[in-house]
């Protein structure tokens, strides 16, 4: 950048004053990507402070309790990581779908489908040795979630059904289906007259092993991070990823280039669902009860990770690796919310509301971010290269939903 800067500066001495300002902007360019979402969270947190004030709680002690409960010690950090796992897994799936131009709001349903499928695996093969059963339940979860995601994919690709609507409907179906299974086919026979919606204690061979150390942290954390790395490779280091992103960027152009757009849509939603499905398996076999339980409805099981994962993915700029710290942050909000509730009697629902505000601010600021970035980049490359648009790797904007026209390919 600096050499170009010099060339330009010599040629455009009369513009020096203006140019200095712009080159400062060029220096800022790498930070613009981070500044806007962080700023959005800060604004959201200050709105949260206003809410705490109106609820009669001191925002400083409130946020202190939140931070302490989330990051204040090894146990807290472990709990935060455990809460972050489903967010990370769902978030990686969201990156894949959104990058392919498919809006997947079906994380909740895909988590449930994965949980059901993995539970069935553990119930059918309880005596398989641990070294096999743990991978089997995880794969079972991925297949369950993947199939649940592929259904809206097929509906979108071949019947033109808006995937936002179909994935939401699939959430409702999955929630009721889970409730049915836990009262009927999969219910805990030992529970007798007490009607708790839960399965029996599943095979101990499927328990996710605890990691060394004295915390509740289990293998799921490693799996989630591994899947984030795999998601990164899939999106940015594989031919499939290039195709998915091309379709997300411009479906028509991809079609003219001979790419199978319909197949890509189904694949994107299937992979996205598979990630959420693994989250479902991790929630079951990493839980302390080692059962599939729906406490007070299906959202008691998923802990709304299907929605919060979207928040983490957006915050991570739709890059799987960046979703790792983002989900850790939001996992911290969730664990911290519990100590907020315990210490200040502020309901943890505050965190859900805050997450909503974060989504609004992050999505609302994407356009601003793009403008700022192209302004900053324009300063760096200047007239030498024209106003080049930023590389798509670093300008994650959820693409407009891919539209499938009547006469599109197969």
């Amino acid at each position, binding site marked *: 950048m600096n050499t170009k800067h010099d060339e330009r500066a010599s040629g455009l001495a009369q513009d020096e004053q203006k140019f200095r300002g712009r080159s400062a902007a060029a220096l800022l360019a790498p930070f613009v990507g981070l500044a806007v979402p962080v700023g959005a969270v800060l604004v959201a947190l200050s709105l949260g402070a206003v809410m705490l004030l109106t609820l009669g709680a001191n925002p400083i002690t409130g946020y202190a309790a939140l931070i302490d409960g989330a990051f204040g010690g090894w146990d807290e950090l472990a709990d935060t990581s455990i809460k972050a796992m489903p967010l990370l897994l769902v978030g990686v799936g969201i990156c894949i779908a959104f990058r392919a131009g498919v809006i997947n709001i079906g994380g909740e349903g895909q988590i449930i489908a994965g949980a059901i499928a993995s539970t069935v695996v553990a119930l059918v093969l309880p005596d398989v040795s641990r070294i096999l059963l743990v991978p089997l339940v995880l794969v079972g979860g991925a297949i369950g979630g993947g199939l649940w995601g592929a259904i809206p994919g097929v509906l979108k690709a071949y*019947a033109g059904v808006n995937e*936002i609507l179909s994935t939401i*409907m699939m959430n409702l179906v999955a929630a009721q289906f889970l409730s049915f299974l836990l009262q009927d086919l999969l219910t805990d026979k030992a529970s007798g007259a007490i009607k708790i919606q839960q399965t029996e204690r599943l095979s101990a061979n499927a328990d996710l092993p605890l990691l060394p150390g004295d915390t509740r942290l289990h293998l799921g954390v490693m799996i989630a991070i591994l899947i984030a790395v795999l998601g990164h490779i899939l999106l940015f280091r594989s031919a499939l990823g290039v195709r998915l992103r091309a379709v997300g960027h411009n479906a028509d152009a991809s079609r003219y280039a001979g790419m199978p757009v319909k197949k890509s849509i189904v694949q994107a939603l299937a992979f996205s669902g598979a990630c959420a499905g693994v989250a479902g398996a991790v929630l079951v076999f990493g839980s302390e009860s080692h059962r599939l339980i729906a406490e007070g409805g299906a959202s008691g099981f998923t802990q709304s990770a299907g929605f919060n994962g979207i928040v983490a993915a957006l915050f991570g700029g739709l890059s799987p690796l960046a979703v790792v710290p983002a989900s850790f942050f939001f996992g911290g909000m969730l664990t911290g919310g519990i100590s907020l509730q315990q210490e200040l009697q502020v309901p943890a629902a505050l965190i859900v509301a805050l997450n*909503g505000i974060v989504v609004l601010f992050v999505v609302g600021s994407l356009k601003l971010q793009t403008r700022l970035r192209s302004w900053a980049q324009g300063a760096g490359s200047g007239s030498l290269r024209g106003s080049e648009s930023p590389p798509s790797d670093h300008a994650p*904007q959820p693409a407009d939903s891919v539209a499938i026209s009547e006469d599109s390919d197969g």
Partner: protein
Amino acid sequence: MGDFFTVSVLVATLASGIRLATPFLLAGLGETIGQRSGVLNLGVEGVMLLGAFSAYYITLETGSAVYGILGAIVVGLLIGLAYAFITLIMQAQQGISGIGIYLFGLGFTDLLFQKNVGTPKPIRGLGEVNIPLLSDIPKVGEIFFQHSLPVYFAFALVPLVWFMINKTTFGLNIRAVGETPEAADTLGVSVNRTRLATILIGSTMASLAGAALALEVGIFQQNLTSGQGFIAIALVYFGAWRSYGVMLGALLFGIVQATVLQLKTLGIVEGANSSLLAMAPAVLTIVVLAIVSRRVAAPGALTRPFDRAA
């Protein structure tokens, strides 16, 4: 165990179907107006929850459902303003910003409910208003003319919304802005002002839908709407962006829900199987969407922000 196919049960089911259709209809009509102008508001569920809570809480405190409804209208307008800012000025992606509204509504109403109300306290909702003469017709009167005011209001809106969209200048602007905003802009129609109006109308109607729900059941609880706002959006597609189509969809869903409830009450289906039956509306939506999606065209500029500079 009772018998479902008796006249009195069928009449009661249809009447309750019409009652249950009302929130779908109010929210769906509002969303129709918004989508005709090219704006998708996926946050209907959240707005409904906020409207439901404000109507419930104000009614609980003041003892008057009228204040509750007025409160819901104000809340609807406020969220509409916020959504308009995010959508029109910040040009946020509409499919996702709606999820933000949903999460905010879900969390915020739960927060306020736990903090200010705690244990569920029932309120006295709106009483039924029997339409003179008509309500005396046997069976028919019971099904159609013995409801609370929001029910009549919602169904009266169906022809009004049709008239507004198809026969007024404002409606023409809405359709123009929703199909080709650039052309409308060239002809001097303010795209964003028109969309601001439709967003405010849609948000207020979603809030009223929540209020109607809360006043009908006389109680509030966490996630009271349980997906009804999302179904209302699907009904707009179902009804092919036409008010009568949305009404048909709302009635279908209301009656399916009423039937499920009735079968449960009568003990014909119990426990686990009622969960299975409760899947019906969502499955039905998916099937219907699969059938109609290719046959009807959405407004041309749906979800596309308008930027004159671009």
